[in-house]
């Protein structure tokens, strides 16, 4: 009896978490797609889409942290990644180097561009989305001014090696090897890092505090500038890493291929339970959000459904997330109205 109660209590506790519902949704969706097309739930296919969504997954962690901090999304991160990707591709062709150096340089460039956003948000008190729309155009515009949008078809071979590193690899019937990509592990590492920062460090808790009540955080003496620079710097850093991951997967640079993915990332983050008003969200939720979108995208392809439905889904998720948050806030204000009327 007691054991049953304990299990019941645990279940109820689990069901309060957004992540549990997402996981259930992922299982149900996967089962449905598998019934329609058994090719979905194969090692090869799963490893494939886990690799393809690693860039979005890495970016999502950074986007999540800024969304919690400021209650307004960063939208410049794709432009940062695009600039970094181009610069790294050109620089490695020119000077060579190794993948670690490339990653470090990409991260450093990303941090720099992220810090610019953070500094403007802090000193000029401008909403994040406004600042980052502006810097998005500056970064992306400069890229086109300098490169004239020229494609790079040939990149340094180290990206090929990095991008094709597999764990637990197998060989398919047609002789191609497949397996868990190192890119997926970079994504998982980022999620773990995000979880650790948000849950375990005082810096992460400061992000939540500022997102919940900025005035109170300032009164408490929380380091506002440091926390903001940290969050925006981290988005930049992760965008830089994501750029290298993307470059390693694609092994070419199309200078407008990453930009345009902002909404996809933001939608995944809010689907993962982050509040569009700030102050709420988890790294696990953001990862599950990315995963759900990846499954959806892959499933639509396997079922021969137009991929435009994917865009529709992103739009619907954002709309539902925003109206739901607003509705909860409204319900909260009205909660007072409930009188126990005597019969």
């Amino acid at each position, binding site marked *: 009896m007691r054991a049953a109660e304990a299990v019941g209590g645990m279940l109820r506790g689990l069901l309060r978490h957004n992540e549990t519902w997402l996981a259930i949704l992922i299982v149900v969706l996967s089962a449905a797609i598998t019934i329609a097309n058994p090719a979905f739930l194969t090692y090869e296919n799963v490893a494939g889409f886990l690799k393809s969504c690693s860039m979005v997954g890495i970016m999502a962690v950074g986007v999540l942290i800024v969304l919690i901090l400021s209650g307004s999304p960063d939208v410049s991160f794709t432009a940062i990644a695009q600039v970094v990707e181009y610069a790294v591709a050109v620089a490695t062709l020119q000077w060579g180097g190794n993948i670690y150096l490339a990653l470090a340089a990409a991260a450093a460039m990303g941090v720099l561009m992220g810090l610019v956003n953070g500094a403007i948000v802090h000193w000029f008190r401008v909403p994040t989305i406004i600042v980052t729309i502006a810097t998005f155009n500056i970064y992306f515009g400069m890229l086109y001014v300098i490169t004239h949008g020229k494609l790079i078809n040939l990149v340094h071979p180290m990206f090929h090696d990095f991008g094709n590193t597999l764990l637990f690899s197998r060989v398919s019937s047609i002789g191609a090897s497949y397996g868990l990509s190192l890119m997926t592990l970079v994504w998982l590492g980022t999620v773990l890092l995000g979880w650790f920062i948000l849950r375990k*460090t005082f810096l992460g808790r400061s992000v939540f*505090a500022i997102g919940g009540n900025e005035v109170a955080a300032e*009164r408490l003496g929380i380091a506002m500038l440091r926390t903001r620079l940290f969050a925006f710097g981290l988005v930049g850093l992760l965008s830089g890493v994501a750029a290298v991951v993307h470059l390693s997967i694609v092994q070419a640079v199309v200078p407008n291929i990453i930009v345009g993915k902002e909404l996809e990332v933001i939608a995944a983050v809010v689907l993962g339970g982050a509040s569009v008003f700030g102050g709420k969200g988890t790294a696990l939720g953001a990862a599950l959000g990315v995963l759900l979108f990846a499954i959806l995208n892959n499933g639509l392809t396997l079922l021969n459904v137009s991929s435009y439905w994917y865009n529709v889904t992103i739009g619907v998720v954002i709309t539902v997330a925003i109206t739901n948050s607003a509705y909860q806030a409204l319900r909260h204000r009205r909660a007072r109205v409930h009188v126990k009327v005597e019969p």
Partner: protein
Amino acid sequence: MEEFLRLEKIHKSFVGVHALKGVDFTLRKGEIHCLVGENGCGKSTLIKIISGVLQPDSGRIFVEGQPVASLGSAATMARGIQVIYQDLSLFPNLTVAENIAIAEVKERGAGVVDWDEVRRIAQEAMARIHVDLDLDAEVGELPIGVQQLVAICRALTSDLKLLILDEPTASLPKRDIENLLSVVRDLQAHGIAVLFVSHKLNEIFAVAERITVFRDGERVATLPPNELDDDRLVALMTGRTLARKVFAFADAGARKVLQVRGLSKRNHFADVSLELRAGEIVGLTGLIGSGRTELALALFGISPAESGEIRVEGKPVQIRSVKDAVAAGIAYVPENRLVQGLVMKHSVEANVTATVLDRLLGRLGLVDPARKQALAREWIKALGVNVSDPAVPVQTLSGGNQQKVVIAKWLAASPRILILDGPTVGVDVMAKAAIHEYVRGLAARGMAVLLITDEEAEAVANTNRILVMRAGRIRGEMVAATAEAEQVQQLVEAPS
């Protein structure tokens, strides 16, 4: 008793305003001290100086006998002085445990958070004032009274010697006030001094050992409560004696402006009947959750009733929306003016004229700015709103002046029936008297007023009849002239 804090000859000026004029002030260890005064009397400035937010222009400060150059925010915390502002400074998205422990965790400066330690810190603080809250509850989900306890617990995580509570009871329902006052006595038992800033006179008498009154930047008196009564206190605060007149309804046979029969709404109220005559002020009181505000919202069409009859000037009317209510001549001044009554960032002028823009049209059907401004100025003058320029945003005004702006906004629409929900909550004595005076003036000119209030004394002094609501029904009606506040209170709180 030993002194904890002594201020000598403190001066502080802002651009053009001499906010503190050579103030001497002492606070003993472990005493409950109340600071009262009208808006702008300098009490907020004094608190800011004690808490280190502002630095005095001149004067000396001693903490536990030691002179201190000046108090910076960090320095005051280190000396055991904490302020809980009216907004409580809590994080609605974080748990009770984290809200309580966050200051202490920050103080310790560890980069990695130990969650067991967070819970331990929170539990320890709660134990000190004998409260037991759910550590995992999200603070934003809790009622305001519980949030206040969380804020106090946070202050207790440091080595607290003086707790300053700025208007702690302004937004609290009555039961929570009792609870808070017992916590304050508990703090005192631990040797912690509490400096209370409040508008509500009766609470002050209940807990204070000494009361300091401020007026125009000067300390006019510090007295124990037994040497003060309401009238003396008001006289000290204002420099004038308030003429306390009781409202007398002149014309008991006046026409019935509003008649309500059997009004019901599920989970809100049931079978409510009432009448308002021209020139009459009727009080409506009851606890929060008794249905009184819900009734007002139904009469004003915000959440319309499901059944029953409403007649205005004898004619049946259907009130299904605010538009219907306004057309029927009903105006409503809400309980929470900040949420429902005003657009805080807009100007006084824009707010006052919001209900009547359709009457201020000039050529081409556009709003005539000159007429709009003239109307706003007229109302500002009529209600004595203390504002230099109607173009300033409402949020820069004091609570009492904001309330006057809300009233002006609805009166500009010249209604026949005025519903006032808690019109004097959180305003100071003089502004309160001015609002009462004004409402009586409206009644004298024939308006029918429904005055919803928490304070029985307010209802007794300012109405003709008092209706008491409990559990969604009207449970009693009393004639104000013969009722005592205590009787009304008994009826309000009677077990159902």
